[in-house]
């Protein structure tokens, strides 16, 4: 016992003095191996963000006089954005898209499937898992064409309905938001399912069993034991799928291109259209910056929720 107390006491001050002098050199040297990674991150990740932020204060364009000599126009793009009638619509559609397809659709469906898989026969669980993950491993452009082929006028869905004697509407035209929400749920549920499967595996079986012995039913065990224990996985998952869904572009572009009219023009589609269809890079980057802010707001909310509660 005494030895245990003495050794740290002896070892404590002396090495501390040495490391005190060596601390900085060691840290600098330790930075060395990760420097290339930092440089690449700065160039390829931070660089475009900074450029985009800068571009949003200019009238940079792909063609016309402004392509040659872009000028600093301060908050011009932002003022224009906030008076653009398409912007509130687009913002609203983006929020609906994120809430419906990610937070409600992917999250709850993923959790539900994960819970059921824990109970299901191994074969059933494997088969369901494979089907769900299949949509997720497809490259985005392929998944987008599959979803387009499914929902289009003469697509799979309407052929199935026709076989049942019903005439389906043109989903992409009549219900564009519903179509892209369902497509994104189909494509993204696998991610939540895998996160929750891993989390559920970490819930100690003893606790659940103890609760069972104490007479807690299924619902009680779920809400009082399982969910509190995987709380951090839930917030992490929510944050990741929110950010993923905020940046979904290919899926929507292929399926509806933001149409008809502007009925499915979520912010990434609006940014693309302004920047590359109307050649207005400055305005497009302003929309991108707003998207960045929305993502940041969501992140802050989740990070706060993630903070371990005191006591």
């Amino acid at each position: 016992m005494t030895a245990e107390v003495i050794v740290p006491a002896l070892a404590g001050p002396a090495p501390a003095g040495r490391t005190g002098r060596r601390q900085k050199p060691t840290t600098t040297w330790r930075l060395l191996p990760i420097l290339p990674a930092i440089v690449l991150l700065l160039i390829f990740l931070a660089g475009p963000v900074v450029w985009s932020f800068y571009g949003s204060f200019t009238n940079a364009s792909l063609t016309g006089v402004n392509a040659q000599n872009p000028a600093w126009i301060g908050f011009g793009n932002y003022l224009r954005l906030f008076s653009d009638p398409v912007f509130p619509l687009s913002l609203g559609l983006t929020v609906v898209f994120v809430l419906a397809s990610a937070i409600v659709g992917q999250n709850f469906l993923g959790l539900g499937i994960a819970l059921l898989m824990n109970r299901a026969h191994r074969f059933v669980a494997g088969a369901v898992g494979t089907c769900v993950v299949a949509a997720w491993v497809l490259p985005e452009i392929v998944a987008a064409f599959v979803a387009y082929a499914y929902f289009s006028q003469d697509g799979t869905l309407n052929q199935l309905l026709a076989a049942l004697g019903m005439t389906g509407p043109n989903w992409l035209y009549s219900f564009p938001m519903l179509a892209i929400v369902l497509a994104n749920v189909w494509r993204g549920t696998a991610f939540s399912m895998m996160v929750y499967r891993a989390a559920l595996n970490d819930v100690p079986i003893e606790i659940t069993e103890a609760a069972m012995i104490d007479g807690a039913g299924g619902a009680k065990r779920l809400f009082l034991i399982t969910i509190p224990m995987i709380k951090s996985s839930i917030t992490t998952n929510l944050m990741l799928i929110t950010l993923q869904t905020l940046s979904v572009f290919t899926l929507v572009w292929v399926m509806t291109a933001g149409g008809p009219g502007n009925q499915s023009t979520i912010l990434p589609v609006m940014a693309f259209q302004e920047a590359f269809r109307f050649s207005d890079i400055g305005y497009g980057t302003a929309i991108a910056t707003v998207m960045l802010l929305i993502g940041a707001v969501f992140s802050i909310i989740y990070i706060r929720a993630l903070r371990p509660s005191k006591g």
Partner: protein
Amino acid sequence: MHRNVRFAVSVLAVTSMVALVGCSTAADNDGDTQTLKIVYQETDSFTALDTLFTKIKPEFEAAHDGVTVELQPIQANDDDYSTKLALSQQSGETAPDVFYEDTFRLRSDIDAGYLLNLDDHVAGWDDWSQFNEGAKAAGMGDDGSIYAVPLGTDTRAIWYSKPVLEAAGITIPWQPETWDDILEVARAIQDSQPAVVPFNMYAGKGTGEGTVMQSFYELLYGTGDELYNEDEQKWVVGSDGFKDSLDFLKTLYDEGLAVTPAEALDANVWKKVFGELFPQGKLGGTVEGSYTPSFWQEGGSYAWPEYVDDMGVAAFPTQNGEAPQGVSMSGGWTLAVGAKTENPDLAFEFLTLALNQENALWYDINNSQIAVRADVASEQSYLEANPFVAAVTDLVSVTHFRPATSDYPKISAEVQAATEAVITGQLRVDDAAAAYDAAVEGIVGSDKVTD
């Protein structure tokens, strides 16, 4: 500590340099080989230019020792092509030496500094005198200098299916005198042949520039109003003609005389028109370009030899039959030399080879273009290329050109948005016109619009 900071900084510098060198893969060709980069569009229904360039590439390389011609076709629709082209112009490494460019984007791209001034080059080019004045003007910038040379031009007309019209009891040849004549015939087709689309006109953003060139402007320029007042150099807003034109499109779509709005918004609807509807006798008529036969003739993407007998051409009428009793729109594509080229002389030489009499003749015939060279226009083989050459060439007398200003592409996009809002029922005609007026004012400023 200072030593360490300095060391860290130098490591940072070295690694960034390694990273940057890794980025620039393109080697400088300062040695004895030179490369000419040729950028152009290629789609499943537009391969004529690719064929032409592939043919002249070995000729050019044989005539110029040490020169490599690098063909870079971009497989994309018109909108995506222009975006990719504009992006490639951002850096000298990727900018093309010679490229294919739509006339309506020329002024805008000249302002952006993407095109080389060709005044000195055309001055020493014997063939230049063969080009007609309209063609020379099409490649001209605001400063009066020549920046591009047209491959050909085009006009727009009504293309109609003779069997469908005959079945509806219409006398062939058909020439509508007013807008109402079109609606009358379309309704007659609707009554007699319910499975047939009576008269389609493009609308919406999906068909892009096709919506305005092959539909809206035929209407607008037949009302006496216009998009842009050349004398005042101002954009026209609040015109009755604009609303009447929207209203006509709305009537076509609301009464089911055109394809469904959902089909109209599909960017590929024109493929359906050429590839399915007309050949299967399921479309009465539409407004399309003089290049229409290129899709149907032998080797075209929707080969249909019977088009020669089944199809008819008519001029698009003015609203109430006002003079000159017909409306058409003209555009066309050009070849230009990139401003960032390192070999302007060589690039221009390639351009002249592609546009010489023999190659221009081949291209105009195979892509159903209206010739802009006098020595091509008079060739018997050109005049006999298809039965419609004379009819569509006559429309040059009533044709209009798009406003050649650098704001045009943006305003065109707003017109397309207005047509989409109307045919889908999202906005009433007056509201769509008002939204257009506000958008135009936002683009060019209130001092550049006129009532």
